[in-house]
Each structure stands twice: as C-alpha cells, then as structure tokens.
C-alpha cells in the first residue's frame, strides 16, 4: 500500500531520517516506534507531505507520491492526524466534519448555495454520530474535552474517506481509560483503512499493531511482529531501557 525506500532528511548537520525503508501493508496497522529523537515524527511528516524529503522514494499503490503537497495527498486518499490537536477550534464540531465531507464534492459545486448542497451535511451528521460526538455537534470544537478533541481529529480524517490513515500519536496526553477508547476506535477502523501510526505509548502499539518498525537515531533498528519486537534484545537495549531489560 505504502512503500518507503531509502528515505532521508537532514536538518543542517542533523540526520533526522537516514535511509529508511519499509512497507505498510493494505488493511493492516503498521506502527513506528522509537525513543525521543529517533526520527519517527520526521519520517511521518515526510510521508504526509508536511516535509519534503532530501532523498528516497514514497510510493502509494505503486505510484510515486514523493514530495507531493498535503492537499494533493489528501485528495489521493491519504489523511493524517496531528500529535498536537489541530482542529478548527472556532467552528462547531459538526462544521469541522462537514468541511472535511465537503472536500469530497467536485469543485464546480463550490459556487452553489450552502443549503442546496445537502450531502456533505448529512454525511457529517452520520460521522459525528458514529464517533460518539452527536451530543456535542453544535459545540465549538475548542470547548471539547481533550479526549473528544482527539476523537474529532480522527473523525475529520475518516470523513475524507481515505485509503490510508496516518495517525500521529493518537493517544497523546490521554488518561488510561481514554487511551483504551482510542485503542478500540483504531482497531474498529482497521478493516476499513490502512493505518500507519507513530506512537509513544508502547502498550497501545503492542496491542493493536500487525507490524512494528522500531527507529533509533534516524534509522530503522528492527521490524517485525509485536511479540518479536518485545523479544528483541536489540530493541530492549535501545528503546525500552534498563528497567525492561532487567524485568
């Protein structure tokens, strides 16, 4: 589905990502983990079009998408979420989702009166309901709880009907109970869309991933099934630290 080959990016003298290659298979959940500064966020931003790579190639369904801007990627079916909640905070929850739904309409419809273009609104209502935000539909997004904002973030992505969903630390800043909810939510999406996520919360990754890539100092250190990652001494040493090594 997504194939990354020899991806590199430097910021000055810092090689944030070096020669990274991996594949995220269709319909599966692939996770990138790694300690702080491992380069996983940079890799993620390269794939999402937020940053342009210095070298390497990114393929989506066999087509080269290296260096395409975010709005083109979004239209091709690649949606991303943000580590730091990034919504239209001054607009209502429903309008946030409606804007995403509206993006699927052909642009020649964009001069029509709003009340004559019903499908995006209807679809937005269904999605808001599906993500358990119906009660807050008219609330301003900025007034939602953190957990609800994180869910809205994913709802916004799913409203784009993507084929690939890129999730940037979806459980960032969440309490354990909320993390479990997000966990379940991501798993429920797994059948519908290919998921690539980067995550700090190891337990989340281990529970839901089909395939895990471990990054360390800008390079791929290890990849495999969650249990293989857990068993790897190499990973333990680099990432999980002393406490896990002795446990």
């Amino acid at each position, binding site marked *: 589905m997504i194939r990354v080959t020899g991806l590199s990016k430097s910021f000055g003298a810092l090689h944030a990502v070096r020669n990274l290659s991996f594949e995220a298979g269709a319909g599966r959940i692939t996770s990138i983990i790694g300690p702080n500064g491992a380069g996983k966020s940079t890799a993620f931003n390269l794939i999402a079009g937020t940053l342009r790579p210095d070298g390497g190639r990114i393929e989506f369904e066999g087509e080269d998408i290296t260096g395409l801007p975010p709005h083109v990627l979004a239209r091709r079916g690649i949606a991303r979420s943000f580590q730091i909640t990034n919504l*239209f905070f001054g607009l209502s929850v429903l309008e946030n989702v409606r804007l995403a739904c509206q993006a699927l309409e052909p642009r020649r*419809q964009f001069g029509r009166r709003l009340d004559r273009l019903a499908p995006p609104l209807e679809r937005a209502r269904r999605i808001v309901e599906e993500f358990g935000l119906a009660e807050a539909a008219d609330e*301003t997004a900025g*007034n939602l709880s953190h957990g609800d904002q994180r869910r809205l973030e994913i709802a916004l992505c799913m409203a*784009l009907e993507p084929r690939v969903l890129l999730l940037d630390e979806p459980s960032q800043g969440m309490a354990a109970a909320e993390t479990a909810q997000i966990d379940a939510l991501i798993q429920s999406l797994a059948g519908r869309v290919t998921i690539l996520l980067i995550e700090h919360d190891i337990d989340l990754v281990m529970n839901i991933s089909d395939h895990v890539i471990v990054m360390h100092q800008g390079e791929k250190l290890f990849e495999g099934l969650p249990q293989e990652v857990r068993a790897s001494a190499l990973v333990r040493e680099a990432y999980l630290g002393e406490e896990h090594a002795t446990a």
Partner: protein
Amino acid sequence: MHAKHGVEAVRAVAAAAQARRRPRAGVRSVLAAVPSASPIVRWTGIGFLVVAALFPLFGSGFYTRLAIEAMLFGSIALSVDILLGYAGMLSLGQAAYFGFAAYLTAVLYTHVTSSFWLVALIVAASVGLLAFLLGAVAIRASGVYFALITFGVAEILLKIAHNTRALGGSDGIIGIPVPSVGVFGLFSIPLKHNLVFYYFVLAGIVLVYLGVRRILNTPFGRVLHAVRDNADRVPYLGYNPFWYKVCAYVLAAEVAAFGGLIYPLLRGFVSPELFGFEVSTKAVVMSLVGGIGTLVGPLIGGVIITFLEIVLGGITEHHLIVLGVIFVVFVMFLPDGFMGLARRLVAQRRGERS
C-alpha cells in the same frame, strides 16, 4: 502620526482577531453559526436600509452627498471584511483598488468614453487582473507580512499617481463629467441630480452586498472560514488554501473598486490621497466598529464613522484623536463591533422577557 497609527492598528486588529478566534470556554462561539446569515444581521440590515431609503427626504443636499460618501467608503470596509472576517487576512492597502478604480474611471470619462457601463466593465476587468497578480504575490506572505505588502502596494500606486504628470501629479485629475446611465437603451438615469445619484448608489451598494453575501454563502465561503480559523489545517482536508485566498482577494478588490467607480462622479476629481494609508486604515476601523465577519456591519460602520467625522470635525479639529479613541474602545470592549452589541442587546431583551 501615520506610522504610529499603523502599528497601533495592526496590534489592535490582531488582538480583536485573537479575541474572535479563541472564544471563552462555555460561551457558544459567535462563529459557530455563520454570522452573516443570522437573524440579527438580517433585521439590522433591513432597519438600516429603511433609514437609508428615507434619509435624503429629510436631510439637506450636503447630508445626502455625505451619505453617498459613507456608502462608497463603506464599500472599502466591506472589502476589508471579506478578507479579515472571512479569510482572516488583514489588508492595510484596500485603498489601492479604490484609488486605482477611481483614477481609471477618471481617465476613461475624460478621454475615452461617456458610457457608464463600458467604464464599469473596463474597471472591473482591470481591477480583477491587477488584484489577481498582486494577490498571488502578497498571499504567499501571511499575517503581518501580508498586511505590510498590501500597505506597500498601495503606497507604490500612490507614488506613481503622484509622480505621473499625465495623471495630474499631486493635483490629480479634475473636471470629470458626470454621465447619465443608460438602462437597456430604454431610458437613462441622470446622475447629476442629488437624489437620483443617491438612490443609484444605494441600489448599487445593496446589490454589491447581496452579491458578496451570495458568493460567500457557499462551500467556497466555508473554506474561507476554515482558513481564518486554522489555515495550517486546511491543506490536510484536500483544499489548496492559496486559491481560496486569491479568489477572496480578487472579490474584495472588486468590491473596493465599486467605491472607486462612483467616487469621481461624486467629487468631480481624483487625487493621489485616494490610495492613501488613511483611506485603507479608515476602512479597517469602519469594519471593526461595524463588526467583522457580518458583511452588513462594515457598511453600517462606514456610515457611523463618516458622519462621526463630520460631527466631531465641527466641534474640534482634533477629531482624528477622538476617532482613534473610539477605535481603541471598540477593539478592547466590543471586538465584535456594532453588530455584536446589537446581538447582545437582543439576547438580553429575550432573557428578560422569558
């Protein structure tokens, strides 16, 4: 004075925009509903239209002409609102299109044609092209830098008008004939008469307002809302914000050009000051005083400020200082302007009744 005024204006407007963007927790945002479509906006607009329709029947010729001026400057304020209230872009140079349209109109009437519609067509096309070219450059910058570029563009045009002998230099162009406006060859509207001219401009500004409202009450307008709220997020929904901003910029320029198309007929002359920073900032003040994001508010703000200027000018020669104070008071205590005040008063009334 100019520079200081400018820096204060930028700061104040930024603060006001901030206040709008981050609603206090618990308060349902002003922006959650589309403000330009709310009933308050509709009824205030209709109320003002009634007053405007009756006004020249009671006032003197002087006040009728002043009201025309208010509507023309109001069009620049409306133009500011399209950019600031919808796309979140602060332009400090909307006078560029007002002045450009005014000069082009003056040149066309004095040298080329006496047909109002032909002039209007040429002005609209030229302003559209100019705004597209300048906009495509200015929009690559954002925030304060966008404001500075728009300011710079207006200043450059001012200098060009000022230094071009063919355009009359610092004196500008005088003796612009007032045309009659033919309507389908059936009859013609003689703009020489004050009352006729007044109702012609009123009808024009109402049509411009309705047109703008219609254009923005679309999926296109909603994308602009999204750009204002969080421009960085917009591309990830599959929208290229650049084109939406360019379209808003061209639309805004055309609206300011409406004022410029009529202004030379009101005054009979044009001068480089029409491009000036004072015209641009006054439009921002009108827009804020009226209520940004409401479209009708800036037109009302145009009336309030224009008349206030005359009234205050009769009392003190320091009327600009008083206007400055009014502006600051609005930004600090009424960031959503006159329309916000009206909305709150109505809400209060309703609360008392129930």
